[in-house]
């Protein structure tokens, strides 16, 4: 069933690209609507803050639509689009002045009104995920936080479905292992305070 839906979505996307190449304004809006949330989520998790992710998202669509006339459909449009998003994210990450200097809005929001233990646990999870390779972080956040279908993640990361599932398998276990290590490091401190 998911394969059929995937095929239909891909056919729909191809028609929209052809219509945009023919200059239809509605096709531009439709392609934007189809992908904007995913491009934003991808950039948000890669860059770590919303403002940069929004700028990169806008820029991604501007670049993609500027170049759409030369898009030949040799790979899925979404893979091509995410390739542009990825390059823009890396460009941004290379700019030292744009490194994150403020707490993520996610931290500010989720930590409001919670107890110290919950905040510590969240901080520990964020520390653990930050220590993972980027590919692992993306697989985990896109599959397990954003709850994208593994096929969507595969298209985004430009990997096969089995390779994506294998990546997710390793990423989940790496996160668990890192969390366990961090907890074991924390425990002696807790004991010493008692």
């Amino acid at each position: 069933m998911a394969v059929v839906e995937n095929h239909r979505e891909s056919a729909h996307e191809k028609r929209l690209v052809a219509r945009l190449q023919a200059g239809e304004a509605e096709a531009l809006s439709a392609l934007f609507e189809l992908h904007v949330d995913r491009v934003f989520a991808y950039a948000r998790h890669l860059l770590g803050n919303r403002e940069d992710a929004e700028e990169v998202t806008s820029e991604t669509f501007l670049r993609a639509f500027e170049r759409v006339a030369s898009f030949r459909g040799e790979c899925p449009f979404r893979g091509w689009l995410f390739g542009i998003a990825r390059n823009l994210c890396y460009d941004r990450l290379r700019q030292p002045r744009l490194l994150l200097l403020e707490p993520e809005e996610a931290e500010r929001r989720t930590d409001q009104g919670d107890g110290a233990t919950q905040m510590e646990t969240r901080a520990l999870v964020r520390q653990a995920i930050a220590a993972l390779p980027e590919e692992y972080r993306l697989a985990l956040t896109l599959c397990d936080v954003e709850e994208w279908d593994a096929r969507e993640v595969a298209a985004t990361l430009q990997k096969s479905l089995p390779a994506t599932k294998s990546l997710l398998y390793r990423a989940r276990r790496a996160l668990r292992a890192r969390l366990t290590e961090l907890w074991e490091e924390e425990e002696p401190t807790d004991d010493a305070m008692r």
Partner: protein
Amino acid sequence: MRCDELLGLLDLYLDGELPEEMARRVDRHLLRCPACAYEARTLEQTRAMLREAIPPAETSPGFRERAAARLLDAFADRLRPAQEVEGTPQWPLPFLREE
């Protein structure tokens, strides 16, 4: 079901992607095998903690509208409204039409 078989299916099981009969076999194994039950429980807990610590990405209010308007503005001179093109094939099966 053997432990090594179960471990190969565990992610599919936790993602709810196993066929019902297979999921029941995994359930039965997890009830009998503490080591596999521990493996399943710690993976589930890790995912729950991840979701708790990192919320889904959310754009700021009005971002989509502003970005869409910026795009339409940037390409205004190259775009035209959709028109019915002569000879456009009719959809013989209306339920296949996605737009």
